[in-house]
């Protein structure tokens, strides 16, 4: 049969990139374990998709945003009110960030409650925890860039809390603020963190995370109905790619509807001379905020550092617990209480 024009073109390219194309095709079409057909295992990919969306919308926003105290608010206002579809891009960015945090927490919960952090996957868990804190950092820095009243005072409160951390606190807060108080230096620093440092770190960490997953393989589960199946895997392309595509389209649809129904708003311009009556951080910090309100300074800060440490070193703590109390599913019990505690504090702060 005569070669089609497409084939001729492809041949031209292949001759100039000396790679074994056949081998490449085989490697990339990695078989995907069957249980990934279950949708709740897609919780890891969703934040990654959202990260991609954030990068794209974030770059768009960068075209108009100006990171100085005088211009920040005006530029955000301009995007929201004047630039064509500015409100849409901004709302997508806002809702994607909220959704990203929700789905990453759900993903962590899924991994936790399926004990997928156990040997040999402890390192990957820790990478994941760092990813989680990076995402929270992105949320905090991103919100502070708006420079409305809530942004400004949340930055003030945040840096004051950092200041109270024993030993390293003052250095940390000075570093974040770029000086003794929140001002122009702070804004540019937070900008650098939000636009360069955290995204680059996140990309690397997510890459590492995925490499680990590929190396270890996804924790295999065999569900009853699948025991009889001849193949324990199914192809990445086109089957799993289609699954991911469904996810992507769904996310785009939901985000667009959220942008239309609940567009991102703008509070009052930041006024360093006037503290608003009610300062609240973003909802994902409610639990932390409430904890600080309920306890004294030391217990508040140290308690949270302790909590973060427990999460980070959990695979090893879990190992010890399994040895000590093999009969009980301690991880499930502790996880349940920990999760509930977080939820209760969050809701409590939300309703007061």
């Amino acid at each position, binding site marked *: 049969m005569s070669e089609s024009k497409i084939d001729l073109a492809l041949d031209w390219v292949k001759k100039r990139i000396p790679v074994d194309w056949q081998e490449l095709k085989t490697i990339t079409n990695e078989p995907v374990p069957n249980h990934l057909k279950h949708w709740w295992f897609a919780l890891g990919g969703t934040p990654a998709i959202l990260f991609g969306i954030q990068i794209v919308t974030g770059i768009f926003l960068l075209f108009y945003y100006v990171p100085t105290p005088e211009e920040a608010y005006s530029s955000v206002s301009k995007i929201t009110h004047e630039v064509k579809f500015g*409100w849409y891009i901004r709302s997508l960015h806002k809702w994607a960030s909220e959704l990203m945090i929700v789905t990453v927490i759900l993903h962590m919960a899924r991994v936790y409650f399926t004990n997928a952090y156990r040997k040999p996957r402890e390192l990957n868990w820790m990478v994941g925890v760092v990813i989680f804190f990076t995402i929270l950092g992105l949320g905090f820095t991103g919100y502070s860039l708006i420079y409305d009243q809530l942004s400004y005072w949340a930055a003030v409160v945040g840096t004051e809390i950092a200041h109270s951390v024993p030993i390293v606190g003052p250095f940390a807060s000075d570093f974040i603020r770029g000086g003794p108080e929140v001002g122009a230096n702070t804004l540019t620093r937070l900008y650098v963190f939000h636009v360069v440092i955290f995204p680059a770190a996140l990309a690397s960490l997510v890459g590492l995370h995925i490499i680990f997953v590929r190396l270890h393989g996804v924790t295999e589960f065999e569900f009853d109905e699948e025991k009889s199946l001849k193949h324990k895997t199914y192809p990445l392309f086109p089957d799993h790619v*289609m699954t991911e595509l469904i996810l992507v*389209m769904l996310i*785009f649809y939901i985000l667009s509807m959220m942008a*239309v129904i609940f567009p991102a708003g703008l509070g009052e311009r930041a006024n360093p001379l006037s503290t608003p009556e009610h300062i609240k951080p973003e909802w994902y910090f409610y639990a932390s905020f409430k904890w600080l309100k309920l306890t004294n300074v030391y217990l508040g800060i140290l308690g949270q550092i302790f909590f973060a440490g427990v999460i980070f070193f959990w695979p090893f703590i879990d190992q010890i617990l399994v040895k000590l109390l093999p009969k009980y599913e301690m991880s499930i019990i502790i996880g349940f209480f920990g999760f509930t505690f977080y939820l209760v504090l969050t809701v409590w702060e939300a309703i007061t």
Partner: protein
Amino acid sequence: MSLNTKRIVILIIGVFFLGALLVVGAVENNKRVVGKKAAIKISQTSKRCVECHTSTSPSLVEQWRNSKHALRGVGCIDCHEAQKTDKDAWEHEGKLIAVIVSPADCSKCHSKENEQFQSSHHADAGKILGSLDNVLAEVVEGNTGRLGLDGQSPAAINGCWQCHGSVVKIMENGRPDPSTWPNTGIGRINPDGSKGSCTACHSRHQFSVSVSRQPDSCGKCHMGPDHPQKEIYEESKHGIAFKAFKDDMKLDAQPWRVGIEYTAAPTCATCHMSATDDMEVTHDVGRRISWNLRPPVSEKIDAKAIKAGETVESWEDRRDNMKNVCSKCHSESYVDGFYTQFDSAINLYNDKFGKPATEIINMMKAGGVLTPTAFDEELEWTYFYLWHHEGRRARHGASMMAPDYTQWHGFFEVAERFYIHFVPEVKKACRKAIRRKGSNATAAKEVLAKLNEILNREEHQWFLSKMSQEEKSKRKAAAEEFKKRYAQN
């Protein structure tokens, strides 16, 4: 899920996504720039006023903040500034200001409106000194002596002047005399000599045009037993329509023309002031009025000017101006028909009650049958009620299509007042004078003769049982027919 199913799912979600994007596009196109909180910029001086008064009079500042003035950058000092030569200037926080912002002050930017207003009767509302009403407030009801406030009658201060306007007096220290201020009567005489008060209708500090277009604004003064225009409007179909369709009235619109920006109903402003597609807004409320319904005997609005030899807009032209507004909703024959009916009602009142009663009273006063002191005899009150209260109600009711006011609060009560109170009281007073055989006895006889002549006129004959036989049998037949409606007959 099979591959094919997945493709279909992607297609469906993709379509939904497309739909969402179309909604996004629609939202983008409909984005209105108006309606957002606009930045307000005013002079440094005004900023200082705002800073302090935000805590001392927060609502006042907030009202101003929501006003068009604030949007345009007109701040406190722009209106309240005063020169040293101003009578009411005083120093406040290092600046020379005046509390009263008079129409002359407003005319710095609103000169056209002020010009129209100054030539209107609203601006003259404060000139009621010497009128019967003022005698009532200052002498009969009130007191300017020992019970007066700085020599003014409290009845006038709190009553009459609050609608008509006071003459604002300034004390030695540059502050207004409390007996004359606060006052936003529409005919207030201001310290700078100008007439009127814009805030009477355009309430400060929001100065919202929609407030002034509401009937309630006019109704602050144009209501009550002696000129119930507000109540009459509310009874009329115009008022009913307004109440029902108030949400469609677009009271904030600029321009605000009946038939174009709104069609649901007319308000007071619609007919008496506001614009149509071919007529401009006027603050001279007399420009569309043909009858003067105020005096004991109604006359055409230009009659006084003609008598004085002045040239003013003729009553016919003014009526045409009004008809211009009517024609936006009503046909020509409808409007002309209405005016025919209306004119006949005024003529009825004039010729049956107004003129005769006034003639009698004048004769009695001239002949000394009535004392020269006003309101010291019952007959004077009766006459006052007749033309000032019931007589006006009947005329105003007819003018604005309120049948109940025209009839039961109007002509019915006019008739009762006339026949059951006025006529007997005249007879009693005259007979007393004749009996006493004093200097006024001759005049009293002439009055009685006049009264008799009046009562023998065709319209009053029934009172003397002189109805024609034909008329009597017609009335009786109608009454019999009517009684058949009830079981008790």
